[in-house]
């Protein structure tokens, strides 16, 4: 390991340890994890009851000598929907808070000028900070996935298969990339603000627009979301007729789809929901086919963090001024 690598590892360790010492960050992580656990527990209990019903049906069918029985309509991974929504909403706040605290910690403690007095390049500082933050993000996502898999098995009596594990691994990577993007946003906005709290407010404003407002507008404009249970179900209209009717509302649907596509969160949600069978239409697809169907979302999830990481590295090259009124 070269000296540069050693310095980066030391900085990453420092970043990780300092982050887990932040009580407010731990509190936000706990809120996310407890809400996640509750959502999965509720879904798993429902799943167990439906699984028992299906098994009773299966036994009855076999006892009557019926050879061809309906396959189980239950999709285990779809129970992760609530958990994925918490990652998308609260996890993003954790990412911003991580980035914000990363900058303000060094500013207020005065360690940044000390670090710069050592033979550490701005690139090493940026890399060390990012690796440490991604380590914490990975820990959070691992805890979420761990809680999910164990809850589904123990409470729901449904254990994930090999294919499920591969799908979960891709969702895991997407979640880390998604949250990493918000970490970069937290750092960039804070580093560019003289008063750090203003940077945090701006970053949260962006989070509000991207994570909550844009997807909400898209969802609300969806004709099928206007009536409880779905408009087309209320009208007794099947899927072919639904598609035929919607084809006459091309402009409306284009505006709605583009509004959703402007949200980075929606791309994470679409990819994660496709991989976890939340959407019925993807349930029978192979993993390769799922990637083909969601390639646009994958591009966003790859390019988004890369573009933001460039701005993140750039923010380390700028001379940092101490925060006005900051305590040493």
């Amino acid at each position: 390991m070269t000296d540069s690598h050693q310095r980066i590892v030391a900085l990453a360790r420092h970043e990780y340890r300092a982050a887990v010492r932040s009580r407010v960050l731990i509190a936000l992580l706990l809120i996310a994890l407890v809400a996640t656990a509750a959502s999965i527990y509720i879904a798993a209990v429902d799943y167990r009851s439906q699984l028992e019903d299906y098994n009773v049906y299966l036994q009855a069918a076999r006892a009557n000598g019926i050879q061809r029985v309906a396959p189980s309509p239950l999709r285990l991974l779809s129970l992760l929907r609530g958990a994925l929504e918490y990652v998308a909403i609260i996890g993003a706040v954790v990412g911003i808070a991580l980035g914000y605290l990363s900058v303000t910690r060094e500013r207020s403690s005065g360690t940044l000028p000390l670090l710069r007095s050592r033979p550490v390049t701005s690139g090493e500082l940026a890399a060390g900070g990012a690796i440490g933050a991604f380590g914490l993000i990975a820990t959070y996502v691992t805890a979420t996935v761990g809680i999910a898999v164990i809850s589904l098995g123990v409470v729901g009596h449904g254990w994930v298969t090999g294919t499920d594990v591969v799908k979960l691994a891709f969702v895991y990577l997407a979640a880390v990339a998604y949250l990493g993007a918000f970490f970069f946003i937290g750092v960039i906005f804070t580093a560019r603000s003289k008063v750090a709290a203003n940077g945090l407010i701006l970053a949260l404003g962006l989070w509000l627009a991207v994570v909550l407002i844009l997807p909400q507008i898209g969802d609300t404009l969806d004709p099928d979301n206007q009536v409880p249970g779905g408009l087309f179900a209320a009208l007794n209209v099947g899927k072919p007729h639904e598609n035929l009717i919607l084809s006459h509302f091309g402009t409306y649907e284009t505006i709605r789809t583009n509004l959703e596509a402007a949200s980075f969160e929606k791309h994470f949600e679409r990819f994660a929901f496709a991989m976890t069978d939340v959407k019925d239409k993807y349930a029978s697809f192979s993993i390769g086919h799922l990637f083909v169907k969601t390639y646009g979302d994958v591009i966003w999830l790859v390019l988004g963090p890369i573009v933001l990481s460039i701005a993140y590295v750039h923010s380390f090259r700028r001379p940092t001024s101490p925060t006005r009124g900051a305590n040493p």
Partner: protein
Amino acid sequence: MTATTIAVQEVQSLCRRRVFAAFVGMLVAVTVLAGIIGWSSHNTIVRVYDEAVGLLATEGRAAPPNPFLQVPPLALLSNLAIYLPLIGALMAIIVGHLALADDQSTGIGRLLFSRPMTRFGYLAGKLAGTATVVVAALGASFAVGIAALRIANGYFPTADQVGRLAGFYLLSWLYLMTFVLIGIVAVLLTRRRSLALLGSLGVWLIVTFAMPQFTSGLRPTSSLNPISDPVSTSQRFFQITAQARPLSVSEQYKTASAQILETTSSSLGTGPVLRIVPLLALLGALVVLAGVLINRHDYAEASSDD
């Protein structure tokens, strides 16, 4: 120096920092947005229904009644009951945060208390100042809402509709003031601005997303849609947690808003007045807590801008 002086200074300070303009601008923008979304989606649904009726007729099937026939005129603004607890509450936290954090970090607090002024008078002034700002922002939103209803429905809202809309805004004012107080209390409990802001945000996340999940099984995105599918709450888990449902103020706010605006056709049990009680209790508790904390607060201690 009186509470009125503090209140006027607070309003001027928020105006100078453009927070006041941002708050008014945001609420006006979301009202316009809610109006456009309501008008656009309603028009589209009516056209979808007409097309569905035509298609079903070609197959010799009877069309079900138009699900939108019973929708009241105020439903056009139903999205406001989603946007105000999201954007409005976050802005309210920032208003509450800035009201005290600036005095603390700039040292103005120490200077103020070198003058003959009580802590209670200071808090009352701050609350009056922030309440005025929230009233002004909601008032602007109310005026735009009336204009949106006039344009979209083609007639001026009736006295009953204006009264209902005013009732909804009064409820929203109480809801937003709760978050102003959360922002204030968080500043008094912490020494760093970032901790205060993130702590308030944590409370907002619990109130907006975690509580509805625990007490009603509402997923985060279900909480963001004015029309959400009913969730099965027959599990034992909910038999326990549902006891706390009256304390889930965001749910109570959403339901009371739907009742006041008559945007729901189904019976929702408890009336809007009773649903406001937990919100009023929380508001009262936060005022008392802020009073206790401000009396104990040591303004000689410097706080960090970070």
